[in-house]
């Protein structure tokens, strides 16, 4: 079903929670407020006409320009985006959801941003969210067991953040 | 001293093995070592059975006793061998009492054994040229009820031509019932909270 009607349907149902959409992109996406993400996802999955029962991937993108020159010119503020790629097995159509998060919770460096977990909506999101937590440092509230999946348990820092510095040494192995 | 009588040399070897390992079972503290010494002791006893001319019983001892019962015992040892039960020292007091009682019993039995002159052993000539004929078949037929070993005996000496068919049936049914019962009994019915073991 075409994107615009879907956006209107969601806006009409969730009102302000749908904060925006970009339909010109190759993969049009819909922006959702972080608080309403679980409600929207549950609705998307259970609504028979949409039936997004297959969650391809849950990932994140870090928007931050490290060097000042580019930061000045960039048209967006530094933030984190959690991106959900969904697919419906019956209707064979796909959808992209985005939730905008601040890079650090109330801007204190080191406090991980929080968003509700959709692990109980799609079981596959469990591992995807653990990977996001591991590589981006996003705290998923209500996640069954949120711990690192790819990096060692005692790894410090979240590698895929733009401002990530490789540790000098790890258990005696030289990092940099 | 004329030529050595070899069968008695083998009797000494097997006898020494049997008694030695029986003693080892008594003296060793580690339950698994005890089990292993018991296996060797019973294997030596099976050798004594072969020496006494009973091939069938010797092979039966190896197959059922050593091959079956002791494997069962070793399974029991494995299932219960938590670290604290493997090496359990017996108290010194029990040892002393045990030694005294055992020594007394042993001397009594050996004295009894050597008191009867006939039991001291046949003349060498009488035994040396006895034919070694197979005795598995008489046992088999005996179990089935036909005492073939007493065919030549005179009528009055023949102790009951009937063999062991009836006890054979009883033992086989008994064994079946016991094994099923043991299997059922072994299904542990553990209390959800074990009794205060103090």
């Amino acid at each position, binding site marked *: 079903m075409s994107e615009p009607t879907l956006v209107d349907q969601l806006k009409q149902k969730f009102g302000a929670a749908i904060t925006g959409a970009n339909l010109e992109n190759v993969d049009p996406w819909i922006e959702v407020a972080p608080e309403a993400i679980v409600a929207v996802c549950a609705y998307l999955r259970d609504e028979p006409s949409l039936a997004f029962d297959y969650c391809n991937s849950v990932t994140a993108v870090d928007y931050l320009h490290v060097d000042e020159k580019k930061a000045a010119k960039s048209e967006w503020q530094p933030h984190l985006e959690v991106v959900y790629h969904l697919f419906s097995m019956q209707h064979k159509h796909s959808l992209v959801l985005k939730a905008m998060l601040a890079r650090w919770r109330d801007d204190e460096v080191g406090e991980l941003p929080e968003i509700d977990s959709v692990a109980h909506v799609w079981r596959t999101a469990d591992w995807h969210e653990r990977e996001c937590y591991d590589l981006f440092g996003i705290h998923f509230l209500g996640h069954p067991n949120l711990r690192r999946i790819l990096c060692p348990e005692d790894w410090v820092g979240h590698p895929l953040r733009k401002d990530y510095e490789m540790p000098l040494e790890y258990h005696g192995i030289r990092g940099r | *001293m004329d*030529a050595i009588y070899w069968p008695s040399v083998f009797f000494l070897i097997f*006898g020494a093995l*049997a*008694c030695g390992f029986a003693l080892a079972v008594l003296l060793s503290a580690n*339950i698994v070592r005890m*089990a292993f010494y*018991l296996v060797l*002791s019973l294997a030596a*006893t099976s050798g004594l*059975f072969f020496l*006494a001319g*009973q091939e*069938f*019983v010797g092979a*039966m001892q190896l197959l*059922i*006793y050593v091959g079956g019962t002791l494997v*069962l*015992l070793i*399974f*029991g040892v494995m*299932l*219960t061998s938590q670290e604290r*039960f493997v090496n*359990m020292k*017996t108290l010194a007091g029990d*040892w002393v009492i*045990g030694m005294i009682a*055992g020594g007394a*019993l042993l001397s009594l*039995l*050996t004295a009894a*054994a050597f008191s*009867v002159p*006939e*039991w*001291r*052993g*046949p003349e*060498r000539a009488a*035994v040396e040229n006895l034919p070694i004929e197979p005795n598995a078949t008489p*046992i088999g037929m005996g*179990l089935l009820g036909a005492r073939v070993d*007493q065919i030549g005996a005179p009528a009055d000496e023949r102790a009951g031509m009937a063999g062991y068919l009836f006890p054979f049936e009883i*033992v086989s049914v*008994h*064994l079946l019932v016991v*094994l099923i*019962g*043991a*299997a059922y*009994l072994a299904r*542990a*019915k*553990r*209390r959800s909270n*074990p*009794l205060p*073991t103090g």
Partner: protein
Amino acid sequence: MTSSLLANLLTEPPGVAHYMTVGAVMFVCGAMCMATKRNALGVLMGIELVLNGANLNFIAFGSKYLDNGGPQLGLDGSLIALFVIVLAAAEAAVALAIALNFYNNHDSIDVDRADQLQG
């Protein structure tokens, strides 16, 4: 007396008495094992030794190579020995079942723990 015993044993065939002594030694070891061992399975092994000691006597009296005119069992000796072996297997199975049950309920195999009937 023992040196002469051994001396003529090397030349003379072993008799029923010699088998009985080996049986007696195993019997006594078994009895003491049952008496002193604190592990239930150690007691079980003592029982096996006792049964084997008895078996040896049956076989000794049944064997014609040890016959010196004394009372003889003939074939009955080996048949009874067979029955003893089979029944020892059954007995070991039941004893093991009891020991396992005791172990599961009391979480210990120590014989001294079985003092519930003392009241």
